[in-house]
């Protein structure tokens, strides 16, 4: 069920500092992969994604007028699903065509004892928002998460 193994070879994520909160940045060979990596970066702000069992899949289907808004919508959809379902996610699959995103998040019910989440994500913001192709085949998706 963990479909991210193949993507890890080309994609990666990192955090960047913000005074009170945390910046998330995903790199990938495609917009979808950059979104997967940005989602992993957001999860890593909350919990070590490797500790999340991939027991359940949640499908997310979104459309936005602009690509960068789609990134914010994607991260906010994950925040909503985590809060509503009381879940944490550890892996993602994303495909983007013409500002339409089809995504799948894999995870399990949150366990306060086992996961000990550090923070709760309140929302993805438009601060430091960028979703761009820096070089051919090198996409960068980033924004600050309010925690």
């Amino acid at each position, binding site marked *: 069920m963990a479909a991210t193994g193949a993507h890890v070879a080309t994609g990666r994520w990192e955090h960047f500092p913000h*005074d009170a909160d*945390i910046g998330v940045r995903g790199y990938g060979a495609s917009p979808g992969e950059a979104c997967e990596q940005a989602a992993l970066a957001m999860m890593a702000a909350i919990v070590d994604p490797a500790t999340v069992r991939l027991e359940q899949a949640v499908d997310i289907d979104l459309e936005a007028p602009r690509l960068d808004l789609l990134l914010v919508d994607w991260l906010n959809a994950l925040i909503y699903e985590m809060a509503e379902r*009381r879940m944490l996610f550890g892996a993602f699959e994303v495909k983007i065509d013409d500002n339409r995103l089809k995504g799948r998040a894999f995870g399990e019910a949150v366990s306060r004892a086992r996961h000990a*989440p550090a923070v*709760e994500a309140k929302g993805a913001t438009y601060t430091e928002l960028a979703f761009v192709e820096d070089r051919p085949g090198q996409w960068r998706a980033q924004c600050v998460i309010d925690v």
Partner: protein
Amino acid sequence: MDLSRFERLSDTAWRIAPFGGMRVPAIVYATEDLMREMDDKVFDQVTNVAKLPGIVRASYAMPDAHWGYGFPIGGVAAFDADEGGVVSAGGVGFDVSCGVRTHLTHLTREQIVSVQPELADALFEHVPAGVGSEGEIALDEQGMNAMLLGGAQWAIERGFGRAEDLDRIEERGCASGADPAAVSEHARKRQRREMGTLGSGNHYLEVQEVAEIFDEKTAAAYGLVKGECVVTIHCGSRGLGHQIGTEYLRDMVISAQDYGIELPDRELACAPIKSELGQRYLGAMRSAINCALANREIIGHLTRQVFARFFEHGELPLMFDVSHNTCKVERHAIDGQTRQLFVHRKGATRAFGPDHEGLPKALRPFGQPVIIGGSMGAGSYVLAGMQTSERQAFSSACHGAGRRMSRHAATRAWGGRKVVDDLRAQGIIIKSPSLRGVAEEAPGAYKDVRAVVDSAEAAGLARKVAFLKPLICVKG
């Protein structure tokens, strides 16, 4: 920050003259040391706010200002609806009506210390805190609407609080003009199991000793006695407020162009107050304020239940409850004329001075209590609003210490276990479901709260009344 870009008005007031589309000047209140420490982003953000339509007098930043979203954290700005003024979802933020309340216990430090570990365990067990925690109050559709309309008044009617608490909550515990119909299904769903939960991050419940009194008369009026203990609760509107912030920010980003608003930063997303979207947001945001007021009232009730197990008198009267992420309709004097303004405070506290009509009679001679949360090691302050604050910043003051280090840097600098052990050696018990969360909130990650409140006092925003030192801290 580079101070050469400011005109120094006094030791604690710094002005930026309008440039590049600013409609009004920007003013930052802080000492020179705090100004030099401040992030350059505060300059960008406080000047961007000054570009928004209908802004009145100036865009302000408080002494604890730091890089926020659109507005700086510690930003204050007022808008006039009759002059095309806007309401900004970014200017209120995701955690609508996040705020602080302090309950008096009238128990001595010795009484608390005699049961400190057991009391800490009981509070941690009884007050839901952290990611994934759930409250015991389940709301159906009717109950949700009643809560969104009634705020703390709703909580008290349901038995989660005391009627006399309302005298000590802004707007008597209920924001008028709430419109539950403007609150989405997603926001409602996100809240249905979160009533009476603390949340995580920098939210906390602390038992604190009144360690120092700066103003005996005002402290006595507030019920603060040196050597006695209080309970301070910091949290907000939980998932409902976060979802409202998310949804309306997006709507405002997309529709700004339609309203002819040029956004200097998308996070400043806003809509004219006199527009359908602006009115809908105000209705939803006021519903979220009521959710936060109800939430803090319920947590206060849960705290009273725990104290009643340990002590004969568990009344815990409420000293005051203040919000610091809001937009409120207030009357302010501008050039000798009283005008109705929409005052945004993002990470800033309302701070009415003495004799203000908005204060309960018992507090009117002294000014509004302003509660400043510090880090879990450094302690907190109670201030009192000053009359000069009206002229300085629409009766506003700071809200906390402000971070000096990112979360990532904090986790590299300290381990959570060591932070807990070091604080225990200082007599402070930390209870948290996450050691990493503790490391991110370590005392060293925050600025010196004393420097911030001294700045606020010197700037005429609010004066010091008491210093509170933590004994127990429950973190989410």
